[in-house]
């Protein structure tokens, strides 16, 4: 199994989830995060003090999939999350040693 971590623009969350659902992937864990990269944060001003926020709000998705599904899932995510502008985000794929479903204790592929 592999863990796909995708850092995406927050408003693409729905599109990505829909795309994954089409592949039959329903389990996803999402984390709010802040991205630093090419895309710049905006500027704010408070009583004349100008400040640059530095980061851009992003969502980090974690999707655990069977290794053979991984490539397909990655390409679907790329498709769904792309706007073509800087800051669309990155996908990282990790090897996974084991997966367990807490409710049943099932392991690995059964656990997904």
């Amino acid at each position: 199994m592999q863990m796909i971590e995708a850092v995406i623009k927050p408003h693409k969350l729905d599109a990505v989830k829909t795309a994954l659902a089409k592949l039959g992937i329903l389990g996803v864990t999402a984390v709010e995060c802040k991205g630093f990269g090419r895309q710049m944060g905006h500027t704010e001003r408070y009583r004349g003090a100008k400040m640059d926020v530095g980061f851009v709000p992003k969502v980090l998705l974690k999707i655990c999939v069977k290794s053979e599904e991984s490539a397909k899932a990655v390409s679907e995510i790329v498709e769904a999350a792309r706007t073509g502008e800087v800051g669309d985000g990155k996908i990282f794929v990790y090897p996974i040693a084991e997966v367990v479903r807490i409710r049943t204790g099932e392991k690995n592929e059964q656990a997904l």
Partner: protein
Amino acid sequence: MLRNLLASRRTLLGCLLLGMILWGGSSAFADPTAPVAIDSNTDKVNSGDTAWMLTSAALVLMMTGPGLALFYSGLVRRKNVLATMMQSFILMAIVSVVWAIVGFSIAFDAGNPFFGGLHFAFMKNVWMFPSEYAPTIPFSTFMVYQCMFAVITPGLICGAYAERMKFSAMLLFSVLWLLVVYCPLAHMVWGKGGLFNFAMQPGGSLKFPALDFAGGTVVHISSGVSALICALVMGKRRGYGKIPMAPHSVVISVIGAALLWVGWFGFNGGSALSAGGGASSAFVATHFAAAAAALGWMFAEWLKTGKPTVLGAISGAVAGLVVITPASGFVGPMSALIMGAVGGVVCFFAATSLKHALGYDDSLDAFGVHGIGGTIGALLTGCFAQQFFNPSVPDSAMNGIFFGGKQLGNQAVATVISWVLAIVGSFILLKITDVVCGLRVSESEEFDGLDITQHGERGYNLEEEFGGTVLDGGSSGSLGSAITGTQTKVSHA
């Protein structure tokens, strides 16, 4: 682009024409009205009445800020919270200035049935002497009390275009709307010689004496119906009906609603313009209507959807306050209770079923609550009014139909004219604003939120840990550490 412009031009032309007809027509009606009498004897100023009216003015300002600012801004998404508060707040400023310069005069100077004159422009003669409008308080008290009404009315419209209107457009539109819709309507209903004024109409024949104690037509119908036009002309928020647009903090909306309730005692109770039985009666009616309407909405929702929501209860209370506004000085406590209950239930359906059936995006239900509520209120006033509760009503024929009178007709006329004025006026003014500076923010601005794009600020900076950079400010000078010579002692824990 070009087509749009052409279309706009054509619209504009039409508007101008219509405006001229209206203005021209108005002179036809014009009776030579005597000027507003001002009594230079300050002895007649009653301290109790003045105390109550100043308190009421403060309460009515509190309705806009922080009341309305909170009520509305809690209902938008986090990224628009400041922009929505700003709409209320900046109206407190800009409307007051316009009011001082010319607004008050248009509304309250004697004139024709539609507009007042300019004797009170730049606050001339608006001083400590009492006037014909309220013979026991300084004229300036009357003026500033009315100013607070002028502030909140365009503020109510904000609910319709929230989360998508440009700040500049909002400013321009509000000022125009004040002058073109609000002031004339206020003149018609409350101004000396106004078309619907029942108390101060020097013998006009083409008049429809209407009962509007505290602004059912002037404030609520005018703003609520204009809100509908705004929602229609501006179109829906992007993603409306597809992505959830849950209120970002019903908590602050509850605070706002409670402050609206409290402030409304000044709004309705103050409209008696003195502290006595009339104010008391209006105060009581206001309270019971709000209470009954909160329950009305809540129970209607509970029955229909299975859960009594907090947003429902507070919306109901506001609806009840709207409904009772025109009636508050004319009805008894139990009538108020019934009117409130009816208003709560009807507005529940207006803001939920009706809106969703028709599909316009009145973001915060300015129309559903103020337009519908104001209309119901104006009509029900024609059902429940009783001269008994307001001796200033000249004739018991002006009682509501449930109490042997026949006032309902005139109430309907006033309602219809208010609707028409609001529809036509708002439509034209929106088109003008659109030509001058564009109504809506761009798609990406709407996406990023108005706070950051219109004002360069964010409402909440709760995650302070993610740093950022100071680009400018605070680092150049060095006075802060240098001047004191020895550093201040810093204690170590």
